[in-house]
């Protein structure tokens, strides 16, 4: 168990090409729900945490519809691996690799993410 005091200080950071980019306080994330973040170059990232505190970040754009909504999808575990289901047409994506579980040819960009 981590002390509450420590967790409030932790920030969620994303690895961009040159540096670590701060997204939000770790405490903002709710297990099982995502948030969207805007990157300096205009891209959008969906950031999630699960009940074990694992952090995941993938492109926020749903490749099947084009809408930037993946952060609003439901997450879950499939065969021990974390995934998010698109809120629009429900395709699932592995949160670690970005691979679409319902269509081999589709994969999301993923980002390195840490709490520090």
């Amino acid at each position: 168990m981590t002390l509450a005091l420590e967790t409030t200080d932790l920030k969620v950071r994303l690895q961009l090409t040159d540096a670590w980019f701060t997204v939000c306080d770790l405490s903002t994330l709710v297990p099982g729900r995502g948030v969207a973040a805007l990157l300096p170059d205009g891209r959008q990232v969906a950031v999630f945490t699960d009940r074990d505190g694992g952090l995941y970040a993938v492109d926020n754009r749903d490749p099947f519809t084009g809408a930037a909504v993946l952060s609003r999808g439901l997450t879950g575990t499939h065969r021990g691996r974390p995934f998010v289901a698109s809120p629009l047409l429900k395709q699932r994506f592995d949160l670690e690799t970005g691979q679409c579980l319902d269509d081999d040819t589709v994969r999301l960009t993923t980002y390195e993410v840490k709490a520090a």
Partner: protein
Amino acid sequence: MTATPGPTPTIVLVGHGMVGQRFLEALAERGLTATHRVVVLCEEPRPAYDRVQLTSYFSGRTAEDLSMTDLAFLEEHGIELHIGDPAETVDREARRVTARSGLAVDYDVLVLATGSYPFVPPVPNKDAAGCFVYRTIEDLLAIEEYAKSRATVGAVVGGGLLGLEAAGALKGLGLTTHIVEFAPRLMPVQVDDGGGSALLRTVENMGLAVHTGTGTQEIVVGGDGAVTGMKLSDGSELATDMVVFSAGVRPRDQLARASGLEVGERGGIAVDEQCRTLTDPHVFAIGECALAADGRVYGLVAPGYEQAQTAAATIAADEASFTGADLSTKLKLLGVDVASFGDAHGATADCLDVVYSDSRAGLYKKLVIGSDGTLLGGILIGDAEAYGTLKAFTGSVPPVSPESLVLPAGAGAPAQLGPSALPDEAVVCSCHNVTKGTIRNAVTERSCTTVPEVKKCTKAGTGCGSCVKVLGQLVNAELEAGGIEVDKGLCGCFSQTREELYEIVHALRVTSHRDLLDRHGREDARGGDGCEVCKPTVGSIIASLAPTIGASGYVLDGEQAALQDTNDHFLANLQKNGSYSVVPRIPGGEIAPEKLIVIGEIARDFGLYTKITGGQRIDMFGARVEQLPVIWARLVDAGFESGHAYGKSLRTVKSCVGQTWCRYGVQDSVRMAIDLELRYRGLRSPHKLKSAVSGCQRECAEARSKDFGVIATVGGWNLYVGGNGGATPRHADLLAQDLSDAELVRLIDRFLMFYIRTADRLERTSTWLDRIPGGLDHVRDVVVHDSLGICDELESLMSAHVAYYRDEWAETINDPEKLSRFVSFVNAPDTPDPVVGFVPERDQMKPDLPLLNIGMRPAQSMEAALEGSAQR
């Protein structure tokens, strides 16, 4: 790679299209890539992609999504791919191919897979600015750019398969779209006149203008040389800003001609049954450029795949032949199912047609039957559900009468032909030529237990995907026959059904999904996060029982928030571009002028699109997520509350004006509708619940199409249950007659609670009534005669719900913690999502869909992105 004695033999592939790629896979599967050097000359600026899905680019697929190759595959097999470097000459004496870059490769085997080019009729000005063809990603990008920068009207020449695809693309780009077809009907090759007219009506209803029996005579250009219109053969002129030619394709056989290979009279590189050219044993031709041994050039991908396999097998010195293929196709064009299979036009001597046609519903189904009862072929427009089974039965006598195969369910045709009736030799997947026997074998001998496993193991279902439904039925039937219990569990996390989970939650007072999963989930799912199926289902069960089991009744409280489907999570309905709709409750459809004005003002102030819904209330579309709380603060202030349009819960209770005004009315239907809507509002259930109250038997409120419908009688109220509009309409059944107000409410309380307790996830009352053992009689026994002795409990569950109801939106706007989730970006809460934009339409606005197609290209700067979106 280990060195082979002597020089490595070389295979050169010209053309990296769909069939070329399949050929490379077949080479790899046969181990030929290990023994041969493989060189690919690819003309297009990108490796093979899925041409069949080209149009899906306009619904958000990117060029990368369409790709069919990954570099790892090429690398792993040592395949040399030269992108953007077409073959220019073939010297068959020297067995050498030379590419545009000057690269020369000596081959042992040459395979031509150069595909087709679009045919453009020789009309004046056909090359003017604004004229396009539709075959490659480059064509599509050019069309998109032109359409966005300078067109509002577009015309497609050709109403065949590709023409309709192209028309769909233009429509998707927001253009007013015309289709000009020379033949008297659309899709003349695939469908007959009857099918053509069903298709025509549907296509016209989508707002496309169709001109059949009309030729294109000339493209008209303006002063700047760009298209302004076209002259048609009937003498009229059509104003248009761009023209897309989709008038058929021709095989690309120039390279073959120039090198002296024999080509057919009407084009196509002539090959034998092994796909070897008739002229030169070292040269093969496959795909759309080949004239097959049966004298046909195939313009579909499945036969091309078969040719690719045949050529690879022949090169590996295995036996294989391509003697012809079936032209069956199932497509979704402009959202309409179109399928044709076998002898669709009834060319066989003495054959007869069985036709079912409903022009109003855009349905047309025709089966061609031989004199001995053999199914020879058919055409299905509007509903191609039965395609998989029918195609597989083609060539045999089906076990039920042909009429019953095309009649809609319920029209005296209970005969549903399941795939279990198919013989083992029947081809279920025609893309990969997989028979039912092979699929059964995958289940019984190779221990596949799920559709994805069977797909991996047999390749069935991995082409066009049209057979996947039949595949699923076969796999389940086979498992059941093998005594393997088909898993009826809710999902991969729970082995219980929804009903069983309801009982556990109720009896053990479980108030969190996590507890339920860790204590009652499947062994390997415990400790995990659940999934998108069980989270909302358990969330709904907990919400239905909240007051009784001591959980919070507020769906955004604590863990509950993480369980909700996305719509429930934002208390609004997600729309296709990521914006939301707002639906305040208008009980019974009755609304005072003052409240109408408030809705009008709010919609005006936020620039929302407004529409009267089919549920007698008003929907406001196009709210950004960060605007929802502000909009709702104003609505709540004016006395509105959530309409739960987003929830699996009570939607509306529609009413007719009833006794108060109507000369026929016998009870106050409006008052009863309002009472019922207020009583059951917010009740979470397995699926949505709808109701209506009519003031007399004329039934203006359509109560008998509702989950619970009430119709006034002189003596009180009749209660009907299990009605449904939607996909499978069902008239509600009479549950009880001449009820007093109190009796009516008591029966509905019991009925709803019994349904919530025993139904499956996403099962409407109609399907539930038809499924549960005993059906309506059983339900009547339970809720009217209390045969299970549970009515007191059902009633008290409902009164707890009624007593604890609170408006979700009022609670949300007063809770800063809950409001914090209604932001576009966690790190830029006030910056609107740049891909949510709107364009004007009919005095209001609609989503700017092209904005979604562009997506956020990484190179785009943030300023540019934000600028493009600020439509309001």
